[in-house]
């Protein structure tokens, strides 16, 4: 009897110990997660002083936003699950059929950006970046197609023109933003695949690089490493870059990238430069461990601005328009985890946040939440248009307060 009692007592002791540990874990883990998504104490201002209009709802994780030339205030929008839509200024949504070869949708993988050729008015050439392949062998691809000139819009003649090498496992960190340079070449950002961060320093592959190609997907003569990785590499040492713009007035390429926990970067992008990842970073790993003890090293181009804690910059645009003349030439940066749109302007002390805007989800039944911002553009009317990131994402139009709508 006493042996039986001892056994019961031991089992009870184990159970009570487990209870203590589980309670401790439940209490500790949310704190750890909260600290990972920590944002600065400075709260983004709500949209007081601005007019915000919901143009479209129910977009499934929309990813990129382009105004359709020849159709003012009509937008092309991609969705991560492969959706491609035309949205009119009044919010009418047309699905544009799009069948991408080997599209891989999972986690961060899916359809990323749509970009129009510089000669789109005559060529109607349209480019898509997306995750291609399978869960165990995938990468970032680019296809070129032709967008019909009449309604309903159709994409024809899709041809895959680029596949980042090598294929890899997992569904994280693809990059995927594209921008055209004045010489008619295309820059594409590529991520480090999360688990392959050291490869961002290896010039024999495309992991953690920004590549430059012709409209037909060929490596451009004049790229800085013609004998490495097919000659595509423009710059290297990137983690996961989702923002890329060309400032024609200054002749500068601006690029931003996600840091780990802290250390998001805004870089002045130049050919052949090493941007450091993972040898240098202002951030630490999600576990709290150091990825690297160095914030800067010889031979590494330092960021012009860095965000710690991370706000997760997802897209940016240079403001050029009449409605916000005080922001002319400023960078508008869409932040996911930071749930805000930041206006960055240069001053004597470098880049500074001139203004911040957050957008609450008025459609939510529960408490309105500030929305994650995935993409931003400035349209021909000078207003700012943003895409919010959720399974029911929105297209929003931002104007100064009192500005008449349409």
């Amino acid at each position, binding site marked *: 009897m006493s042996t039986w009692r001892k056994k019961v007592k031991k089992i009870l002791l184990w159970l009570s110990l487990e209870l203590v*540990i589980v309670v401790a874990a439940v209490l500790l883990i949310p704190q750890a997660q909260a600290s990972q998504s920590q944002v600065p104490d400075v709260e983004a201002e709500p949209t007081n002083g601005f007019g915000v209009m919901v143009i479209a709802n129910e977009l499934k994780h929309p990813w990129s936003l382009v105004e359709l030339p020849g159709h003012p205030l009509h937008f092309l929008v991609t969705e991560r699950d492969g959706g491609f839509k035309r949205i009119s200024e009044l919010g009418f949504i047309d699905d544009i059929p799009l069948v991408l070869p080997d599209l891989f949708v999972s986690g961060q993988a899916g359809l990323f950006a749509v970009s129009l050729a510089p000669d789109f008015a005559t060529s109607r050439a349209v480019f898509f970046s997306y995750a291609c392949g399978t869960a165990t062998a995938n990468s970032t691809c680019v296809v070129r197609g032709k967008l019909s000139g009449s309604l309903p819009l159709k994409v024809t003649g899709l041809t895959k023109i680029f596949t980042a090498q090598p294929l890899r*496992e997992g569904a994280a960190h693809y990059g995927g933003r594209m921008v055209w340079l004045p010489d008619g070449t295309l820059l594409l950002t590529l991520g480090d695949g*999360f688990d392959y961060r*050291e490869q961002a320093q290896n010039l024999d592959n495309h992991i953690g690089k920004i590549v430059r190609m012709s409209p037909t997907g060929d490596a451009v003569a004049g790229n800085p490493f013609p004998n490495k990785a097919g000659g595509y590499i423009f710059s290297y040492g990137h983690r996961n870059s989702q923002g890329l713009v060309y400032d024609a007035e200054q002749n500068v390429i601006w690029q931003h990238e996600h840091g780990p926990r802290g250390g998001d970067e805004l870089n002045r992008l130049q050919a052949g430069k090493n941007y450091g990842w993972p040898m240098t970073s202002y951030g630490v*790993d999600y576990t709290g*461990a*150091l990825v690297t003890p160095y914030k800067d090293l010889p031979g590494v181009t330092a960021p012009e601005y860095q965000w710690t804690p991370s706000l997760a910059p997802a897209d940016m645009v240079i403001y050029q328009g009449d409605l916000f003349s005080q922001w002319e030439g400023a960078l508008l940066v869409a932040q996911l985890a930071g749930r805000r749109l930041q206006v960055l302007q240069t001053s004597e002390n470098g880049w500074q946040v001139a203004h911040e805007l957050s957008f609450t989800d008025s459609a939510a039944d529960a408490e309105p939440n500030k929305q994650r911002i995935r993409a931003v553009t400035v349209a021909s009317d000078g207003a700012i248009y943003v895409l919010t990131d959720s399974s029911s994402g929105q297209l929003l139009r931002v104007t100064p307060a009192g500005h008449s709508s349409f």
Partner: protein
Amino acid sequence: MVRMIIAFVLAMVAAAIVGSIIQTQFNLAALVELSVPISFDTRISTIIHDLLHFSPTFAVIIAAVMVVALPVAYAISRWLDHGERWWFTLAGFVGLLVGFYVVNELAPMPTLIAATRSWPGLVSMSLTGALAGWLFDRLWHPTEQELKEPVV
């Protein structure tokens, strides 16, 4: 009960410290391979940083694994009436191996702890689970001979 709790806490703390130091070495080794200079002072300061900032997270993971693994090991050893120390050690190793897999499935990123991306790193970090299991039993049920050993 008090002895068991003390043994458990000490085993978790020891394993978290050792695991933290091990993962720092893997991270620094990856940088050295990229020709990044790592001086002795830098190595020590990195170890200290990770002990302060990584080991608490790792301790939670180990503890969550061990509250499942150790009772299983205990049950097996009672059932076989044999080899408690070995079962606790093995359970710690296998438990952490499975724990890393589960954490990576649950976490949004492919691999939470970078050092476990490679097989040598995964095995080395899992061995800290073996240490936790062994140390727990060493403190909870020391042998008569071990009780005679001087504390210092």
